[in-house]
């Protein structure tokens, strides 16, 4: 089953916290990590990153790898400069009260 970013939003409790131009990107696979070098080394184009990290470098890495989006778990307080940069990069950012493991479980149950 091919998942899109939009479908994820409909099926699991995610809040889109920025204003990307499109949320119809397809998702290659889920990638969960809180270490950016690990993400750089192993994530692939159109993956969706699930992480507790919410600093500006996450966006640098997401843009470098052309990820489909980023899900911040445990409802973090995402700073306005991150949201602004994500809009510029046209990168969907989501916030969820769920833990990383819970997000993965929910998405896996959709497939």
């Amino acid at each position, binding site marked *: 089953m091919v998942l899109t970013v939009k479908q994820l939003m409909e099926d699991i409790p995610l809040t889109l916290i920025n204003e990307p131009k499109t949320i119809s990107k397809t998702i290659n696979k889920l990638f969960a990590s809180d270490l950016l070098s690990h993400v750089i080394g192993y994530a692939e184009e159109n993956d969706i990153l699930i992480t507790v990290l919410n600093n500006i470098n996450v966006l*640098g890495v997401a843009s470098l790898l052309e990820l489909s989006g980023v899900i911040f778990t445990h409802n973090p307080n995402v700073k306005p400069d991150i949201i602004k940069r994500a809009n510029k990069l046209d990168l969907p950012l989501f916030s969820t009260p769920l833990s990383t493991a819970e997000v993965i479980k929910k998405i896996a149950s959709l497939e």
Partner: protein
Amino acid sequence: MNPSLKKTPSHARIHKEFIIERNDIANAGTVASSTKRILKNEGFPSHFIKRVTIGVYEAEINVVIHSYGGKVIFDLNDDNVSLVFADKGPGIEDIELAKAAGFSTASSYAIENGFGAGMGLPNIEAVSDEMHLTSSNEGTTLSMRFDIGDDGIDS
């Protein structure tokens, strides 16, 4: 390298220099973004650009989180992209250990920002065609080369 590739490179030769400040983590990625823009303008395919920018980004982060600051020399040559990252110290004590996946001496500042997994040098080695690292307490020089041809525009 296939000799036919050297005849007529369809890109310009470009030389650039960048300064990286110590602990300037908010601007880390500037050199990678500039590199990406240059290669995009010159018409390189996205998988080649990605390979180069991953190496550049990792090296840039290393200078930001481990060194006292440094500079980067970027050269787009006829048949390769070459980058040299030269910092002002404090140097790497054991280069072979530093190259081992998972080994890290990163500060808690770096780790809080999502770095310091000990994956930087292994990642650079994986994406580049050649990586060379020398270090003393005066500073560290990391050079990397990406050959055009395997997956570049001229192939």
